[in-house]
């Protein structure tokens, strides 16, 4: 896309109406921001150069604050979308300054900035805290402990797929159509003659691609993601709310994506997790939480496994039904009732707060 040789005249439109032309306007940057150099062309190229001018203090500050927010849940400036007079001042102003200048100094090296943040002593702190500390600093703005927050919607899904071994980590390519309850697009459709009115699920390898490749129809966004706070993409969202609702529990317990992932995790555990219940429980739990369960936790998991075994032992019908969820077939060499019991246990593990939380 190139600039027009002679740019079109542009006007302020009264009440936004296309035929109500007011004052004629020229390209420029807001007057409260640093001015644009006269040497720069008054077009998109000039704007881009102005944005990344090392002397422009804003860009790097906003960007590193976004990175910080991704790792810590809250930015150094909490109002990541607003650094103006209506925003919040930074909790650690010198730190923000330093990160911003480091970012520019490194030649805007994004990877180096991630390394700098994740190898910091602050980030490497444990997320554990006393109730007293939480009461004194509920949002952890003073960073006396490590971050702890629920993963964003897409990552909750990717995480479950990765734990179960189903994740397809191919990069790039067109959007995909994962499991979605039937009829969602159709009940809001315009009718025949228009595109994108019905939803056709993708074939197998595409079902397990990362959440970011999920097709996004703005009038009917994928509910399993929006329920977990993915924005509807109707407005610019610089930070997401993190809510905690019963509908989220229903997604994680009942969406075929997670039921199938539970079976795949059970399958993976029975094949690779050792021979004893104890070893297998440790294996599955560790895949999900990156740690070994303590004896109390292991006892709870063993107790649940025994319950599930006794429930499915005489219930071949329900075991088969559970194992049939999803497009990937269950391993036929594994005893179905035993696999059903482990699938139920795996679903428990995928639903743990710790599994869906970054800490």
């Amino acid at each position, binding site marked *: 896309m190139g600039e027009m040789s002679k740019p079109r005249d542009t006007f302020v439109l009264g009440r936004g109406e296309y035929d109500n032309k007011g004052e004629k306007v020229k390209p420029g940057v807001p007057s409260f921001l640093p001015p644009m150099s006269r040497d720069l062309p008054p077009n998109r190229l000039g704007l881009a150069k102005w944005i990344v001018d090392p002397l422009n203090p804003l860009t790097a500050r906003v960007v590193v604050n976004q990175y910080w927010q991704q790792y810590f849940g809250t930015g150094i400036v909490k109002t990541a979308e607003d650094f103006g007079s209506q925003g919040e001042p930074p909790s650690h102003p010198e730190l923000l300054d330093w990160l911003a200048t480091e970012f520019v100094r490194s030649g805007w090296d994004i990877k180096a900035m991630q390394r700098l943040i994740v190898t910091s002593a602050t980030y490497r702190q444990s997320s554990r805290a006393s109730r007293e*500390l939480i009461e004194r600093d509920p949002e952890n703005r003073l960073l006396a402990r490590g971050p702890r927050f629920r993963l964003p919607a897409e990552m909750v899904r990717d995480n479950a797929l990765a734990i179960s071994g189903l994740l397809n980590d191919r990069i790039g390519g067109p959007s995909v159509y994962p499991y979605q309850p039937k009829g969602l697009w159709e009940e809001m459709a315009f009718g025949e003659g228009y595109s994108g009115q019905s939803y056709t699920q993708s074939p197998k390898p595409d079902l397990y691609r990362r959440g970011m490749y999920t097709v996004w129809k703005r*009038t009917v966004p994928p509910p399993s993601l929006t329920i977990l706070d993915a924005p509807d993409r109707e407005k610019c969202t610089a930070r997401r709310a993190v*809510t905690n609702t019963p509908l989220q529990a229903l997604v994680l317990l009942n969406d075929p994506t997670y039921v199938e992932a539970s079976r795949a995790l059970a399958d993976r555990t029975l094949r690779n997790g050792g021979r004893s219940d104890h070893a297998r429980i440790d294996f599955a739990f560790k895949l999900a939480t990156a740690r070994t369960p303590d004896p109390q936790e292991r006892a709870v998991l063993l107790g649940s496994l025994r319950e599930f075994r006794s429930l499915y032992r005489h219930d071949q019908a329900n075991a088969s039904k559970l194992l049939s969820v999803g497009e990937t077939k269950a391993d036929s060499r594994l005893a179905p009732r035993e696999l059903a019991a482990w699938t139920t246990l795996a679903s428990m593990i995928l639903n*743990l707060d710790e599994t869906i939380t970054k800490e």
Partner: protein
Amino acid sequence: MTDSLTPEISAAMTRRQFFRRSTAGIAIGIPALATLLTTDGFGADTAIDEKTGGLAGLPHFPPKGRRVIFLHQSGAPSQIELFDFKPNLVKWQGAELPDSVRMGQRITGMTSGQSSFPVAPSIFKFSQYGRSGAWTSELLPYHTKIEDDITIIKSVYSEAINHDPAITFLQTGFQQPGRPSMGAWTTYGLGSENQNLPAFVVLISQANALNPDQPLFSRLWGSGFLPSRYQGVKFRASGDPVLYLSNPPGVPSGTRRRMLDGISKLNRLLAEKYGDPEIDTRVAQYEMAYRMQTSVPDLMDLSKEPESTFELYGPDSRKPGTYAANCLLARRLAERGVRFIQLYHRGWDQHNDLPRDIALQCKGVDQPSAALILDLKQRGMLDDTLVVWAGEFGRTVYCQGKLTGTNYGRDHHPRCFSIWMAGAGIQRGLTIGKTDDYCYNIVEDPVHVHDLQATILHCLGIDHLKLTYKFQGRYFRLTDVGGLVVKKILT
């Protein structure tokens, strides 16, 4: 966070008390604890009412209504055929709409190319009913029974001329997407009165008419910049009534109960280690999810309704997903304390073949709409339930397409349309607003969409100027920068 709330999370509280409180005292989808701690990162300067999960200090004044049932007639019904009787139009049938009436006002691209704008009178008859003597179309025989219970406003107007911006305007107070819907604002302000159902429920029904429907958009019940827990939850007629509600195949309820017990035990062990109250909230939310699995099917199960209910709402009320069934469900939701019940009924966009389609559409809508009012009334619920029946704009007096003695179409007309409201402090048997003889411009009591929204909030005890939310450096409200309460229609 305000000082008055900090003692509530004092370290002296045991985990058990903490947990019990956070399950008992909060609304579904509105975990008070999470809000107290503002872990969603928003709304740090607002205090929360612990009982409802709404804002502390709301309602601003004693409310007449506690809940809203909004019967949205999607596609925009013709006021000329239903409520705004214009006897003189017959004289002008086929004559050009005078320039003195149109006054050069903008019309849509669908008719702006027409060489002629012939006046199309309604072919349907009107009579007066009730003590109020409201003129009512023969298309709405059941409405004659409720004329003395409702207020008809014949002078509502919108700024938008096409469906998408107009519905968005009506539901969110702004034509462009991204603002919270009325239901989201209401539940944000007032919270919930039911622990086992969402506070904001959406029901959709499909057209009775034959013309193609306008699409709907889930942003119409979205939460905009409010946290996503305020978004409406769509209850569906087929499949799971609430998405993901049913256990997967092969997981009976007893097995699910044991799973939840296990999850709960492990999460509580974790909470002891990390001290993060979000974990307690999550335990509570899983329990609520389990309760919803019972409360929602119970709500949707109409088998215990007596025969008289189905007679009242009409035979369609037995068919899930119809407007009639949704009106009945709306009453059941209202009974259970759901705060905002939003219906969308599609099929009113009658650009052509209007007489045929509006007759079909009214057949589906008339009886159940009236039944809902009668039903609420007989249960004593009309006093504290606000019912609103409205489309997103009106339709033109001039004909779109070919005008014959029996057939015509009408284009979009934002300059006047008719709606009705009932219950919760709204006058009974009142008609306000006048349009000119051509039903083109308002001549008395104009009611802007923002005025309507301000009035709806007023009925719930909310001052629309005070229910605000700061986003991207600005305080927003449902009524944007406008809105005057229509005092004339209040009791």
